[in-house]
């Protein structure tokens, strides 16, 4: 049977974080009332002129840097011409000939093998207005018109849906932690189109390309690509040919459906945007953009692994930016990151979720958290006790010491307290003590269980175990 190989290229658009839009001073914010965030520039009124937002250029430099692209120092913009109601100027300002970044890559890891996914180019452009279809009409909201976008075009270098999904996840993580974009697919601040073609394995040329547009989640990109590979393979196996076409992913069907067959290539008649002179990037400007990048996802990953956090928890932390940022405020201290991350991801997260709260809404101060972690780390507070007092720590304006006092929690390293407990257990369990002296291993486990039961989990098991053996051997 003939073997086929898929070739996949992906185009991603992300909305860039900035206060104002790319070419006008209208606010760049999602979720505002329709048509409440526009200027005459965004509406494409005749005679209006675009002005370039410096922050968008800086964001472009940052993105190019994070995606390992060469940065184009002399850029201009181009008009991409087309007639469509989502863009009343009849052109979109984009970068056709001088994209801000070229020849980059991101690295993915599949089955423990690292692989670079190459990026052809990234360019800056403006978004169009948002349209919603209602019967025979379309409703237009210009809040999105002129919102800055970065388009990232990969090389056709992926061959499976797993690679495509990992590429998108890595891209999202990188741009999200770089503060370039929110990358929320559900809000449209990250949009993915995939180009898929199938050819006989080892063939020198690519098969007929199908573009799948506007897929609503990274998971669905994987499904859409898989379905498209299956569809095209089935056609080729039947000896059928098909035309280049645009398809879309239907959520409900879980499959791609035909949108249109491309009879001719797009003819956008790009030409240089005459209203914007060249944008020249200085070394100083590039340096400043890169220096102001927050700690990236890879750096965070490295830091957490170095501080001993389990790889699984490292990934959990990275999927929760607030917790990761919080933990990072302690990066210069000797705080035990393992205990801190366990607590943040475990009990603290469930408390916050249960109460629909953010960390900022609690009474947890920096000092208090560090004191709590330090007490657990030194064995002065057992895990059980920490769990018990956590709500008070988060809700009360008291120090950890004050809460422990209030809850009558002993300092568990207080040896006289521990000794008293152990003495009691030894007195009450003569048989097990005698078993221990006769070398029966199970006796120590039983006795230890009794000690912990007596202490109601309020003592450090390690300390107690050592003390128990010491006291048994004294006899």
């Amino acid at each position, binding site marked *: 049977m003939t073997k086929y190989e898929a070739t996949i290229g992906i185009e991603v658009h992300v909305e860039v974080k900035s206060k104002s839009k790319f070419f006008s001073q209208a606010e760049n914010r999602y979720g505002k009332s329709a*048509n409440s965030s526009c200027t005459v520039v965004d509406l494409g009124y005749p005679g209006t002129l675009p002005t370039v937002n410096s922050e968008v250029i800086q964001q472009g430099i940052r993105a190019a840097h994070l995606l390992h692209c060469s940065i184009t120092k002399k850029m201009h913009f181009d008009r991409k011409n087309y007639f469509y109601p989502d863009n009343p100027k009849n052109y979109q300002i984009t970068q056709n000939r001088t994209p801000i970044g070229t020849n980059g890559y991101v690295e993915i890891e599949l089955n423990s093998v690292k692989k670079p996914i190459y990026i052809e180019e990234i360019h800056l452009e403006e978004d169009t207005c948002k349209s919603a279809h209602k019967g025979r009409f379309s409703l237009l909201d210009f809040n999105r018109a002129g919102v800055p976008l970065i388009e990232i075009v990969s090389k056709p270098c992926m061959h499976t849906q797993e690679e495509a999904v990992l590429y998108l996840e890595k891209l999202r993580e990188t741009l999200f932690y770089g503060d370039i974009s929110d990358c929320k697919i559900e809000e449209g601040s990250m949009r993915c189109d995939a180009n898929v073609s199938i050819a006989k394995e080892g063939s020198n040329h690519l098969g007929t390309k199908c573009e799948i547009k506007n897929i609503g989640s990274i998971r669905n990109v994987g499904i859409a690509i898989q379905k498209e590979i299956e569809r095209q393979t089935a056609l080729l196996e039947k000896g059928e040919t098909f035309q280049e076409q645009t398809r879309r992913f239907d959520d409900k069907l879980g499959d791609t459906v035909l949108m249109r067959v491309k009879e001719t290539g797009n003819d956008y008649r790009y030409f240089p945007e005459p209203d914007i002179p060249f944008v*020249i990037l200085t070394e100083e400007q590039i340096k400043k953009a890169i220096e102001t990048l927050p700690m990236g996802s890879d750096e965070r990953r490295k830091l957490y692994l170095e501080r001993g956090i389990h790889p699984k928890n490292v990934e959990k932390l990275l999927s929760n930016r607030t917790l990761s940022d919080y933990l990072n405020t302690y990066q210069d201290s000797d705080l035990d990151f393992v205990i801190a991350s366990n607590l943040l991801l475990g009990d603290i997260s469930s408390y916050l979720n249960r109460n629909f709260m953010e960390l900022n809404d609690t009474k947890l101060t920096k000092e208090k958290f560090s004191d709590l972690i330090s007490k657990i780390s030194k064995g002065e507070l057992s895990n059980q006790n920490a769990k018990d007092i956590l709500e008070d720590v988060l809700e009360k304006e008291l120090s950890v010491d004050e809460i422990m006092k209030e809850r009558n929690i002993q300092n568990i390293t207080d040896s006289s307290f521990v000794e008293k407990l152990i003495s009691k257990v030894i007195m009450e369990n003569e048989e097990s003590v005698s078993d221990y002296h006769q070398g029966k291993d199970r006796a120590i486990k039983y006795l230890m269980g009794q000690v912990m039961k007596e202490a109601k989990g309020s003592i450090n098991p390690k300390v107690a175990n050592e003390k128990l053996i010491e006291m048994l051997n004294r006899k």
Partner: protein
Amino acid sequence: MEKLSVEEVKHIAHLARIAVTEEEIEKYRVSLAKLFEMIDQIHLIEGYNDDMMFSPCEEEAILRKDEIGDMLKEDEVLLNAPHKNGKFIEVPVMLNE
């Protein structure tokens, strides 16, 4: 000068969303060809380079500070729209998406 083909004129008319009659097509086959010839002459200018086409002035772009400025009021946005629906501008449904 070589005339444009009928297909070329039709294609350009389609891109510009202009309906053209058979007579007009014949007219444009000549006049557009003349126009393209004139455009080609630009390349003959002494010292011509691509940068001249990209930007008409030698100055570089002055970048704007990222600040929110005055915006239109919602009713002002809708003022010149032939049709509206609530807060939206309404147009015939767009199929060729």
